[in-house]
């Protein structure tokens, strides 16, 4: 069973995603902001992390950069949910590999399908992380 961590300050978002992912057979963990996500990662690294950007205390961008710093050999992928579609809000992620954006509003169905697809494609073929993207 794949383990997914959802990081979002919006309880309704966590609740609906948890419901949908659990129905699809994933194990779901949750954190309300970046700091709590780091604490979670320290205890239990997931197979994939879904994170919002705008969060109190530590936002999604800081969280990703911090993960890159703390876990240079990270194995899990990161899905970033963002309300900001402009490219300049994504430039920070250029040097972080194994990370992709999903624009809000997010379709729960599409997200679950994308995750299913991702895990089936992956087939245990681990990608290197935190290396310079081409």
């Amino acid at each position, binding site marked *: 069973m794949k383990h997914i961590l959802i990081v979002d300050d*919006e309880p*309704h*978002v966590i609740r609906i995603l948890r419901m949908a992912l659990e129905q699809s057979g994933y194990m779901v963990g949750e954190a309300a902001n970046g700091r709590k996500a780091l604490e979670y990662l320290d205890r239990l690294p997931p197979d994939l992390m879904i994170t919002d950007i705008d969060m109190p205390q530590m936002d999604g961008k800081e969280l990703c950069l911090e993960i890159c710093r703390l876990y240079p050999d990270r194995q899990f992928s990161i899905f970033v949910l963002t*309300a*900001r579609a402009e490219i300049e809000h994504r430039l920070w992620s250029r040097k972080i590999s194994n990370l992709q954006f999903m624009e*809000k509003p997010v379709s*729960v169905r599409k997200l679950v399908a994308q995750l299913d697809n991702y895990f089936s494609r992956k087939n245990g073929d681990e990608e290197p992380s935190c290396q310079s993207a081409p």
Partner: protein
Amino acid sequence: MQVNQILSVWKRERLGLMMVIASLAVITVIVGMLFVNQQKSEMENIRKQGISLAKLLSQMSFDQVVPPTGKQGAFAVLQHNQEQTSFSYLVVVDTSGRQIAEISSSGVIAPVIPVPSSPSEWLEEKTLSLPGDGKQVVEFHAPLFNDSKLAGHIRLGYFKPGLGFSSKQVPFLATLALPIFLLAPLFYFLIRREIRPLQKANSQLDELVRQGTLNKMEITATGELQEFMNHLNGFIGSAQDRIKQLESERSGFETTTKLLSYKRSRIDSVLQSMPDALMVLDESGAVSFANSRFNTLLKVSPGDILSKKPVEWCDNQDVVAFLSDCTRKSAHGFNRNVYEFSPRATPDKTVSVSSYPLFSPREPDQLLGTLVMFRDVTAEILAKQSSGAFIAHVAHELKSPLNVIAMYSETLQNDDGKDDAFRIEASNIIHDETERLTQLINNILSITKIEMGSISIERKRVKLRDLIQDTFDTNARNANAKDLAFEADIPREMSPVAADKDLLRIALNNLLTNAIKYSDPGGKVSLTAEEDENSIRISIRDNGIGIAPDEQKKIFEKFYRSERDDIQSRNGHGLGLSLAQEIIQLHGGTLTLNSTLGTGSEFVIDFRKETDLLKQAV
């Protein structure tokens, strides 16, 4: 002193005195000439008389003139007739010089002279001096013959006429001198009369020179002098006109100069007061003008950069290159270049430099230099950034509830056997998020309009009591749902005010919503309204989570939300308080906060009744 007096009299009366002296000289000359003429005339008479008498006697024989014995000869006749005043003597001498006969005036002794020896000397005229008194005598010689033989000589002497003055001449001289003496004062008077206007003119001119003014002279004269005075007055008149014209022109010039000076100082004041730093570069690229803004913007004194090229005062090589480029481009008539930089002296500022070629307004082809404008665009850049940040914030805040709505509605659409409880929960969440979205959009619209100044307060007579009560009642449902004690203390009567009802409702609603939102179940929210003669106060108090001191100012900033967990866990977008404050300030009121962390908060609205906005309706 006496010398001075004499000199002054001479100066004053020199003309008269000179005329007296001149007339005396004339008389003297005339009298002298008369005497000389008279002397000449007498001499000629004597000569005629002497020669003719000598010749007459010479034609007689010696014996006829002087008979040898007792006979009366010519000599005796002559002796009785020689009574003339000029006659001196008549002597007859023999050939040896012996005096034979003599007649003479009384007291006169004929001088003894040698007998002429040669015949050429027989008829002769001589001037001799009488022995004794030495008087001059003119003597005429003539020979006397007896039978053609020289028998002797006649010597006839006359007193030589002198320059003597005789009493007979007095009347003549008096007759001559009198008219001259009479004419001299007359001439003097006439001349004085003629030159009097000239003297008057002279003294008036003196006076004018002393006073430094130029007026026409009031002088009456005659003839050419009058003509001269007329010309002089004409000249003075022309000079007066010219002076008036010059004074008028000078006054005009002074006015023009003052006007120009005023305009110049006004333009200078305008240039110095410009919010931007302005400089003019001449054709060589040197600074020919710089206003005082350089002091603050670039920390450069305008006086220090005058006549200097940018390379001499500017430490930013890019700016130097830009300005050189501007000067070069201006020469080719290019317009407007812009460059932005951060000055080394004020690195926190962003300065935009723009240049414009300066052409002469009269001769559009003549290039006067380059106008360079340094503008502090820090605020504009920050405004652009904050505007961008605001839009990004709004987009995010809008997308967050939309995201939740989309997720839940999509899940409901694909309902595959979920229980009723989920459907109720989902529909409640969708409803709440829709309300949140609506309120957010309303708040964003209101706050944007207020900030852009496009919102106008629709001042209407508002029954404040009803408005407060109504807003309170609207929020009562939410308060009850949260199990809060929700209380209001509103006076039965409150003065109506002139306010915008809808805006005030938004402000009150936001404050009440906040109080409910940040109170825990079982808590208490109370609204109190008070009114006295001068002011109205509305307080909204809760005993909720409270606000930390360091956040009490920030909560009025747009989109500010505390990062505290107990706040983040409650829905909010950080616009409610900002909007409430803007609305209350728009009505001339104040919104203040009293809060203690963990104990609760109190928001106090104060309106003063004398505020224009409110008092009209009161």
